[in-house]
């Protein structure tokens, strides 16, 4: 079935929708229009089945036992690592560290890579459109080690000014931490160019790929990015697993973050030596079943023509923008050229939570709030926005439901 799809020139979202059992359930008696995949995507049957079958036939702890199941589970876990490697275009499988999510992946870089190398007054460059996951770990370094955060503003349309970012990089800069795609604005940053500019000044780059890995086709080698953080649950996979891609040389130089089983070579009363990466950064029993689920999700996703999926999502975005043009009381926030399929807006006279409640009663699931991006909210002078985010299983019917819900909300509230 997936092979046939790969040969198909276009993408059949209606067929994909049927792969996600939850999308068939009504909400408040209405057809579900799930437009909150930016917060977390739904999981296809292929993922749920893979996890169940693995747990029923091959599950045990990894890298420990000599028994058959331990070997089978270890094989599955390491195969999942290679699936992530292929998905991101990494050169080596040992450049992929499993984490519990994107947040932990970024924290790993903060604690293991930057913390030992940062002096008071050293700088970290980041944009005002970062998610809190790519802000708070750097605030820790400010708070605890005297690092200075250098904020790069964005243009009013939400696009990143690469010149401004370049200008913010000084001889004191130790890292550029930048989103690949804004979770609020949908802005896709010119990551390859950012990396080239930073590298020209000898500065490494971390990209928060929580959204970027879903909506862009990522090749970490082509990007030449130093660190790329992803999370499984936004990639149609399970919660509890994510990954950090890091260049081999960085991982080899990094000290461990968590200590425990499996990350050591030898432990004596007087001293310890560490395992090589990636095991060095995977203390304790990892998310084993989730790794199998993540691999199944990436296999499912990759079996589609990714360019066609992207075109489909962009069609939904354009269709929604067109529909919103008739609603002159809706203000879209974030209109950067080439932006991905995330649509944030403000509605005159309506608070996002009231709007989201009314949409919910129409079966339309959206996110309302500050989207863990309070600095960005401040930048645009709003306390919250409503966000519709599109995934491969969304259709124009979902957009129609959103537009109808907006009209209804206006009837009720204004």
């Amino acid at each position, binding site marked *: 079935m997936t092979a046939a799809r790969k040969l198909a020139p276009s993408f059949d979202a209606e067929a994909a929708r049927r792969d996600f059992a939850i999308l068939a359930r009504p909400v408040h008696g209405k057809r579900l229009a799930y437009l909150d995949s930016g917060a977390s995507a739904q999981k296809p049957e292929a993922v749920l089945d893979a996890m169940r079958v693995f747990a029923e036939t091959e599950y045990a702890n990894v890298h420990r036992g000599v028994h058959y199941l331990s070997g089978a589970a270890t094989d599955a876990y390491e195969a999942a690592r290679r699936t992530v490697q292929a998905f991101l275009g990494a050169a080596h499988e040992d450049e992929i560290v499993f984490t519990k999510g994107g947040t932990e992946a970024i924290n790993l870089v903060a604690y293991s890579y930057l913390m030992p190398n940062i002096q008071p007054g050293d700088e970290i460059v980041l944009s005002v459109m970062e998610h809190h996951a790519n802000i708070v770990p750097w605030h820790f370094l400010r708070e605890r080690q005297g690092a200075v955060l250098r904020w790069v503003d964005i243009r009013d349309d939400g696009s990143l000014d690469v010149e401004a970012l370049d200008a913010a990089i000084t001889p004191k800069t130790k890292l550029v931490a930048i989103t690949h795609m804004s979770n609020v604005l949908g802005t896709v940053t010119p990551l390859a160019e950012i990396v080239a500019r930073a590298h020209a000044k000898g500065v490494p780059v971390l990209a928060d790929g929580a959204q970027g890995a879903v909506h862009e086709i990522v090749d970490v080698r082509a990007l030449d990015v130093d660190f790329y953080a992803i999370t499984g649950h936004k990639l149609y996979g399970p919660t509890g697993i994510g990954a950090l891609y890091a260049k081999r040389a960085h991982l080899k130089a990094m000290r461990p973050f968590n200590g425990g089983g499996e990350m050591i070579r030898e432990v004596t009363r007087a001293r310890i030596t560490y395992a090589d990466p990636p095991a060095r950064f995977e203390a304790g029993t990892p998310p084993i079943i989730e790794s199998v689920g993540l691999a199944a999700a990436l296999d499912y996703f990759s079996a589609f023509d990714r360019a066609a999926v992207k075109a489909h999502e962009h069609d939904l975005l354009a269709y929604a923008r067109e529909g919103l043009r008739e609603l002159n009381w809706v203000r879209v926030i974030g209109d950067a050229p080439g932006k991905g399929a995330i649509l944030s807006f403000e509605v005159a006279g309506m608070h996002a*939570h009231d709007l989201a409640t009314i949409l919910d009663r129409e079966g339309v699931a959206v996110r309302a709030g500050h989207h863990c991006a309070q600095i960005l909210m401040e930048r645009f002078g709003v*306390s919250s926005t409503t966000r519709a985010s599109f995934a491969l299983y969304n259709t124009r019917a979902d957009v129609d439901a959103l537009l109808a819900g907006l009209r209804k909300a206006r009837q009720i509230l204004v």
Partner: protein
Amino acid sequence: MDNALRELYQEVILDHSRHPRHYGPLEKATHKAEGYNPLCGDRVTVYLALDDAGRVADIRFEGKGCAISQASASLMTDLLKGKTAAEAGKLMDGFLRLVRGEAAADLPEEAREHLEVMGGLSEFPMRVKCATLAWHTFKNAVEEGRQTVEEGAS
């Protein structure tokens, strides 16, 4: 049309949210607290003037937030003026039960009539916090918001 929605956003609620009563700072406040809901970003500041008998001689609020949070704060200020802090505490308990859809038989008749417009919230458990923010902030103001002390709410 959805009856639960119609009840939640009934005219009284919308009117209070658009034209909140007792809105703005209170110059002679003896007590003050700020409430903040980090989930949605709603903010409310409650100002109180408590007299020597512990009665709410005056109460005002200001804030930013959804229709429910603003209407609830407005309705609260209407109700609490003239009540003692102890009476207000009982009304708060009754209000919390009301919005959660629990029996609130001990609410005095006058208060029930005043607050039952918020009863529709029981169908919207995700939104109960919006309505209770002002009340919790009022409680903080009474308990910890004495104006001689720098209060550290939110």
